[in-house]
């Protein structure tokens, strides 16, 4: 066997420097996020929770990106569909469930914010809000701090295709381009801003916008976790070398409606959704692992069983946990506030 033939036979993940265990771990996070998301939809339909906004179809890119980062030091500014991303960054199913049930012990907001509004200082997941894209300049600010304090962390911010049209995306990208800041902008282009399809939102290509801000922009198959991993890893290396930001457009498809309050067949067809279901990154990655000879149906069934058990436990935990006290809403307006709100 020649050397080049050997390289061809090396698995894609190994060529990227990922071990078999890491590849399996990626798949496990993707699966966990998918099962979590499905459970949320079920709980909402059952009337157990008020609201869920889904990330189904976006797990591959989220996990690929997370694995390419320094998860001990980097700062993460996710958006509201990033369940797989935050799971891979260390948030637990219990913590997600506490948020879903809006319970006092929710580390994201103490039960104040809608689920999907992540934030956890322990994990360097920066608090986010609902007006979209405001987190982009924040990520730039973290990167500015990294540069000023000569630290080696980078910041990564994710957002949707709709968000790529907000002023804060453009202002933040330009600011980071001018000052060559160590920040990664990752657009999770799921083809829809609620009901508005991409062709009614974007005149050109999202990735091409980077050119106008003086840094590279790449479009990548968001259903392929390894491809996203490769591109984000390169972006992180560029940032760490002081060469500035990168824009990554991970192209995917939002398989779920926008949220539990959305009736998506009013603006898209079942045929369209089904076509994209066929391109879903999750079963494809499972097949990849099987083809590599490091995974099989038996192990898959065992893993699915473990995820289900963990979800059952976390769901019960979140459901049982106490709500905040009503008067708790008066707390934390300011550092020094007391029992009457901010006054």
């Amino acid at each position, binding site marked *: 066997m020649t050397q080049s033939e050997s390289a061809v036979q090396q698995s894609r993940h190994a060529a990227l420097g990922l071990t078999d265990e890491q590849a399996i771990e990626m798949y496990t996070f993707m699966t966990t996020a998918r099962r979590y998301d499905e459970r949320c939809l079920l709980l909402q339909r059952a009337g157990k929770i008020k609201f869920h906004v889904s990330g189904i179809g976006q797990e591959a890119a989220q996990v690929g990106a997370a694995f390419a980062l320094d998860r001990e030091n980097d700062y993460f500014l996710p958006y509201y569909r990033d369940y797989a991303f935050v799971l891979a960054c260390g948030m637990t199913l219990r913590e997600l469930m506490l948020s879903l049930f809006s319970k006092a012990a929710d580390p994201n907001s103490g039960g104040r914010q809608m689920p999907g509004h992540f934030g956890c200082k322990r994990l360097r997941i920066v608090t986010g809000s609902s007006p979209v894209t405001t987190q*982009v300049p924040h990520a730039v600010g973290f990167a*500015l*701090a990294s540069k*000023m304090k000569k630290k080696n962390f980078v910041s990564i911010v994710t957002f949707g295709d709709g968000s790529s049209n907000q002023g*804060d995306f453009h202002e933040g990208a330009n600011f980071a381009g001018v000052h060559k800041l160590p920040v990664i902008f990752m657009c999770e282009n799921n083809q829809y801003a609620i009901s508005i399809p991409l062709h009614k939102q974007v005149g050109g290509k999202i990735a091409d916008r980077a050119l106008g801000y003086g840094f590279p922009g790449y479009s990548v198959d968001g259903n392929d976790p390894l491809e996203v991993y490769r591109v984000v890893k390169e972006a992180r290396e560029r940032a760490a070398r002081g060469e500035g930001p990168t824009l990554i457009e991970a192209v995917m498809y939002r398989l779920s409606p926008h949220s539990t309050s959305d009736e998506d067949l009013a603006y898209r067809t079942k045929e369209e959704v089904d076509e994209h279901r066929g391109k879903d990154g999750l079963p494809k990655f499972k097949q990849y692992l099987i083809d590599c000879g490091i995974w099989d149906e038996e192990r898959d069934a065992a893993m699915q069983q473990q995820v289900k058990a963990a979800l059952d436990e976390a769901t019960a935990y979140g459901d049982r946990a106490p709500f905040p006290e009503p008067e708790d809403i008066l707390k934390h*307006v300011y550092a*020094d506030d007391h029992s009457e709100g901010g006054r």
Partner: protein
Amino acid sequence: MPKMDYIDAIRLAMKEEMERDDDVFVLGEDVGHKGGVFTTTKGLIGQFGEERVLDTPLSESAIVGAAIGAAMYGMKPIAEMQYSDFMFPATNQIISEAAKIRYRSNNDWTCPLVIRAPIGGGIFGGLYHSQCPESVFFGTPGLKIVAPYTAYDAKGLLKAAVRDPDPVIYFENKKCYKLVSGDVPDGDYVVPIGESNVLREGDDITVISYSLPLHFAMEAAEELEEEGISAHVLDLRTLQPLDQEGILAAARRTGKVLIIHEDNKFGGIGAEVSAIIAEEMLYELDAPIMRLCGPDVPAMPINPPGEKFFMLNKDKVKEAMKKLALY
């Protein structure tokens, strides 16, 4: 004690805070070699370098947004808005983000940020270089708002703002930059946020105000003294949180209250001050609460007669004070 212009006191506060703490930095448009369009940051780049006196692209939302990110990391940014008229593109970052970061994260993340913004007219700036936008931000829980009038407070309040663990909007009055000067001690001191200050003791009427109009009130009070009218003048200094005790004590002193601000009357700070007094001590008053404010038009024009009509001055203030005294 050295006498110093208001603008120099602002600059000195930044310089001393940047010397005290490496995490303090200034960012904004033209703050570097130009030293700001009003020279507020003049000379800072020479001492601290271009990283800590950061010239930014012309984009207010990114200036505030990046400052918020840096503040969440642990820096102490001072974000300069060139004119308060131009801070509206950053309003979403200020109201949806900075003001709510501590609250929405249940005290996990914090945002110790200062936003400096010059307010006020009387400089032939027309509609968009003259506004007083206090009422836009006033009433947003999570924000603190200060508006110094004296040079002493300009320094002390800015230092307090930099050291505050929450976001503070620092409204400096561009007309005061050179018009107002006063004693500013050498060395370190802070003026606590949330405390009003009696500028002048008096027994007949109480004037409650902040920023430039206090200049007119103090001049008018001096003239009225000669006419036998004794005015008690309270400088709010902090607009949010309002110093309720200080306001009530000043109102009780005379039982007659005139509230003055350049921001327009409807929905302004004066409405809230008036409500506090009415809620707590209506029956102790000897006259209806009066307000003298900018007229309820979008903003002042550049033509001199129009600008003069909009602006407060000593004569308008004196007339209102006299009217209240004679009530």
